């Protein structure tokens, strides 16, 4: 089939619409290369196999559609946790609202500051994991991000970092079109937690590249929420060394379009990766897509994917998850589950689980289910005096809870559960 030329026209439109930062020194070559790659792969198009269930046009339209601001009177996410706060307003670092960027066992710089330097360690990582993650499926929106993003954080963890780095994205302009790129290097034996929250902007494109050395640990909890009209595309690229750990969890509520790509490569033996997500969508406008690609390229590694979506009033949830086991990745333990809970007949859950295995001594399993609330269970609860709506909420929360359990830190997990509970309560009556 002929590749539609619209892909390339759109890529050109994007390239001319966004400015590559000038005088970006060490990142210059990477960015020029990214532009060339983007030209070659074209922009995502709904006719692409990888975008079969999610129409990317709102993510590539120039200009981005406006999104009304959302009044949120809740306490900020992760408020009860001792954390280092960093705030980006419409994708721009805001030093006034941020804490001092210094912590024990960690060096944090803004991408802007790092770009001003003649030489920087981030040169070897910035855009490199993204470029690696383009095979076998192109991810052009990440490449665009590499080419033009000038905002973000560059984080170097050299030991155990006790306070989580908590990034809050604030959406303050109706027409904001934000591009954020973080680079994180976790040294041997180091450990760091990254928290992200907030809608970000009218349109938000983020890339996180994480390189975890042997015995390193990276923990990530993210909430994307409460902003009804926003559109978001995120990419997380992670490379895992020997006996390292990667755990990422995302909670999503509201928003019209969210696409979260997670690309993980287990390159050292005995490494572990978990990616989880719980999302709740209400209304025909809600479209949420989790796309995961995990490559096992070392011996005795374990990966887990646990995704749960509860959908109502015509909302759509998508899961595309793949485990690729390379020929030498013996003793791989790969697990994947995706489940949709539909609260009515108008909602949709679309799943495409895939396994591609070239090693012979592996244990991989995947499952996908879609269902409704069980009538007998609901009756059991109501027969004990629990009102129907409350009973339904209990069951929804129990369903999502199985994904939330994947978060290692109990305080963070409890925080997420509370938010989900609150979201549900707002939908009562």
């Amino acid at each position, binding site marked *: 089939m002929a590749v539609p030329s619209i892909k390339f026209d759109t890529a050109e439109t994007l390239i001319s619409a966004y400015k590559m930062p000038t005088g970006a020194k060490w990142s210059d070559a990477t960015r020029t290369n990214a532009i060339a790659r983007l030209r070659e792969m074209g922009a995502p198009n709904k006719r692409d196999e990888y975008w079969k269930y999610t129409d990317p046009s709102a993510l590539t339209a120039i200009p981005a559609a406006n999104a009304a601001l959302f009044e949120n009177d809740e306490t900020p996410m992760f408020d009860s946790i001792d954390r280092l706060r960093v705030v980006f307003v419409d994708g721009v670092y805001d030093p006034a609202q941020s804490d001092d960027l210094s912590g024990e066992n960690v060096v944090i710089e803004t991408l802007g500051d790092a770009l001003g330097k003649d030489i920087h360690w981030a040169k070897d990582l910035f855009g490199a994991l993204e470029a690696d993650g383009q095979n076998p499926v192109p991810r052009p929106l990440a490449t665009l991000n590499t080419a033009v993003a000038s905002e973000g954080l560059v984080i170097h963890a050299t030991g155990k970092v006790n306070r989580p780095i908590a990034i809050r994205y604030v959406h303050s302009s109706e027409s904001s079109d934000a591009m954020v790129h973080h680079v994180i290097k976790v040294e041997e034996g180091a450990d760091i937690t990254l928290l992200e929250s907030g809608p970000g902007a009218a349109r938000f494109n983020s890339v996180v590249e994480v390189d975890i050395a042997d015995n390193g640990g990276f923990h990530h909890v993210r909430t994307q929420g409460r902003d009804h009209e926003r559109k978001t595309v995120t990419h997380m690229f992670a490379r895992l060394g020997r006996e390292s750990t990667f755990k990422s969890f995302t909670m999503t509520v509201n928003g019209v379009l969210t696409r979260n790509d997670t690309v993980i490569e287990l390159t050292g033996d005995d490494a572990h990766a978990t990616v989880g997500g719980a999302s709740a969508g209400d209304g025909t406008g809600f479209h949420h897509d989790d796309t995961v690609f995990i490559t096992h390229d070392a011996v005795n590694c374990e990966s887990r994917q646990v995704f749960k979506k509860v959908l109502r009033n015509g909302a759509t949830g998508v899961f595309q998850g793949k485990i690729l086991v390379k020929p030498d990745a013996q003793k791989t333990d790969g697990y994947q589950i995706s489940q949709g809970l539909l609260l009515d007949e108008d909602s949709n859950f679309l799943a495409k689980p895939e396994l591609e295995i070239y090693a012979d001594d592996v244990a991989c399993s995947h499952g996908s289910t879609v269902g409704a609330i069980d009538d007998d269970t609901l009756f059991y609860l*109501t*027969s004990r005096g629990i009102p129907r709506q409350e009973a339904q909420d209990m069951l929804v929360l129990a369903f999502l809870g199985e994904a939330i359990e994947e978060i290692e830190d109990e305080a963070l997990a409890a925080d997420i559960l509370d938010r989900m509970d609150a979201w549900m309560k707002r939908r009562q009556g």
Partner: protein
Amino acid sequence: MLEIKNLQVDLEEEEKTILKGVDLKIGEGEVHAIMGPNGSGKSTTSYVLSGKDGYEVTGGSATLDGADLLDMEPEERAAAGLFLAFQYPVEIPGVGNMTFLRTAVNAQRKARGEEELSAGDFLKLVREKAKALKIDADMLKRPVNVGFSGGEKKRNEILQMAMLEPKMCVLDETDSGLDVDAMKLVAEGVNALRDGKRSFLVITHYQRLLDHIKPDVVHIMADGKIVKSGGPELALEVENNGYADILAEVA
């Protein structure tokens, strides 16, 4: 207390009549038993009383202290004081037994305009009641009925009943699947709730349970109707001779 008059029930999904005019009147503090062959409509009666979906009442009435049960949502029936111990208790993964009990107790209190139980008071109460039924802390922490043995599930039903303190308790084959000791525990649990006011409707196949929970009246249900009522001796007759004689006699 409970008054069922000429209750007629069809299945919603298919053309089938299950209850063909059930009459039953249970006074305050009384214990009634219903026995009857498999498929005669005993569980259906209990489901229709407690408001399960899937049944269509085509005639008759059911009232609890004069209030029309059939017009209420299941949760309203519960708050009004009706409780059904299920023949097959449901497993609920992800919902802790303790959370479930507290939510139920407080929902009922709220519906009745009473104050919610504090976390401390609730805990004290549940521990005390669980102990009497030999339900250990681990079972309270686990998800509702998940991985419980048959007998544990039935004891858990009685624990819920003890916590909710209903005025009309319907027990659907709470004795089936119980070993001799568990049956005694359950019977003790039920008897502890007998206070001269609270009423019971005990559905069972076996006379044995009725040795422990002494009924005032025994009813025989067959083909969607109560066909015979009598004293405890009726249960003995069933135990010894089966249903054939009784059914032949009323036919």
